[in-house]
């Protein structure tokens, strides 16, 4: 941003350095010259004056206390979507979450088995249950227990979030982490960031496609673009072909779906995923 008469607008760091009194005298004088003429920068300075005020009023103090208490009690539980079978599913989800948390915590506490990276944490979580019909990158095959839909609350791994942070999870892993919980509103932005990063591989595009496909306002067209993008980068990336076939099935494009299932079986003919693909292909011809 440029103020027409008084030079470049000030960076946030310059504004807070000004308040601290740590600017070089020449820069300080130039900043003051700018601040008296640029209303935007002065407003931003005012914003930081309010932010950094050391007067904590009673309302703020109480709110911080409440939030701190919440944070320590539950270490940030994820919101769950309401659903038709909510009560029962929440009960199962709670039990599952406790068991999974116990397993993860045990792994995290056990020195030898401690995951060394965020991707290992995600992989560990992914090994606990299959979240979707579609297939995430690196996902081992498991039978699908839950059906997709609004009434499926997903599992919340609130307590693991801190570990992800400590393990410096990148955007892709954070996206996968939230995707596992079916928290699409968080997963999609992370995966979209990952997709824009230089060197984003087939796995990133595949996982973003899964997020588009499985989110409540399912976007199969957009999902297909991502699967295709993954295959442009790596023509033998089997999960993307699997998902492409599935996305066609979901939109009732059965002919295209059959083509993609056949393509999948050429890439992978023996795994459990292949067995599932074969069963789906047979299902289409019935």
């Amino acid at each position, binding site marked *: 941003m440029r103020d027409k008469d008084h030079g470049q607008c000030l960076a*946030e*760091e310059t504004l*807070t*350095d*000004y*308040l*601290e*009194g*740590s*600017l070089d005298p020449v820069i*300080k*004088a130039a900043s*003051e*010259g700018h*601040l*008296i*003429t640029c*209303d935007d920068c*002065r*407003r*931003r*300075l*005012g*914003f*930081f*004056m*309010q*932010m*950094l*005020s*050391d007067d*904590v009023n009673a309302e*703020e*103090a109480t*709110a*911080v*206390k*409440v*939030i*701190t208490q*919440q*944070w320590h009690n539950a270490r*940030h539980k994820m919101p769950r979507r309401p659903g038709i079978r909510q009560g029962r599913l929440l009960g199962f989800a709670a039990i599952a979450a406790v068991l999974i948390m116990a397993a993860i915590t045990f792994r995290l506490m056990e020195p030898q088995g401690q995951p060394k990276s965020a991707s290992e944490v995600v992989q560990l979580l992914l090994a606990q249950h299959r979240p979707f019909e579609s297939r995430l990158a690196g996902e081992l095959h498991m039978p699908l227990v839950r059906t997709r839909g609004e009434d499926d609350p997903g599992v919340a791994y609130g307590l693991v*979030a*801190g570990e992800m*942070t*400590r*393990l*410096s*999870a*990148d*955007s892709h892993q*954070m996206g996968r982490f939230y995707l596992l919980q079916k928290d699409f509103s968080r997963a999609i*932005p992370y995966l979209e960031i990952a997709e824009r990063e230089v060197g984003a591989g087939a796995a990133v595009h595949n996982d973003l496609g899964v997020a588009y496909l499985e989110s409540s306002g399912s976007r199969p067209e957009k999902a297909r673009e991502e699967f295709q993008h993954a295959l442009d980068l790596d023509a033998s990336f089997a999960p993307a072909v699997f998902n492409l076939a599935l996305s066609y099935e979901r939109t009732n494009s059965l002919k295209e779906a059959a083509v993609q299932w056949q393509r999948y079986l050429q890439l992978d003919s023996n795994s459990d995923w292949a067995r599932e693909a074969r069963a789906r292909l047979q299902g289409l011809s019935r």
Partner: protein
Amino acid sequence: MPDNVGRFRWQKNGETSAADLLRECGEKLTDRILWTKFQERFQGLIFLYLMRALRIRRIQDDVSGIVPDLAQDVYMRLVQNDGRILRSFRGTTEFSVMAFLARISSSVVQDYLRQQSSEKRRAQVIPIETAKNGEITAFRPVESPEFDPNSISSILAWIDIERIVEGDPDRKNARRNALIFKLHYIDGFEAGEIAKFPGFDLSKSGVETILARLRKRIQK
């Protein structure tokens, strides 16, 4: 004041300085003990800054429901890219640490609001509050007793601020004084609030003196 807001303020004897702790956390991203210390000293501040950033931007929702989510994003920013942002921190004072956390909290809130507004746009709903408030601003109502708030903008419109600066006998601080004048009369900051920031290098009465002097000159 909650413990961990207060604890930040009074560093215990022999304890690592806030700036060093921040940098150390950037170098040892997986050190639990260090991060526990970080949490003890800074988490309350992060909550406070997120809450303030939401309120200044006039978010009326239940902020205590939003803040924990946003705090998680703050932690994400701190550690992503191998803790680059923490490692690049060059401050030495407690104020610089507070300012650093305030900038990150503000940026997280800005992104959150951007995301919210894009979701609203997608749904083609424009809340009346957003329409009324317009762009996000940190404006506070002018409640200065010396001027009628309704006429302040028109008065300031014809004040040649350059002339004020040039005519100030305190040549060295003329620009600072003009800035203080605007912060008070346009942005609504009280003398005491301005004086709290070391950058202005003035006591409350010093700020009041400057305001009185400039006011007198303008009234002439």
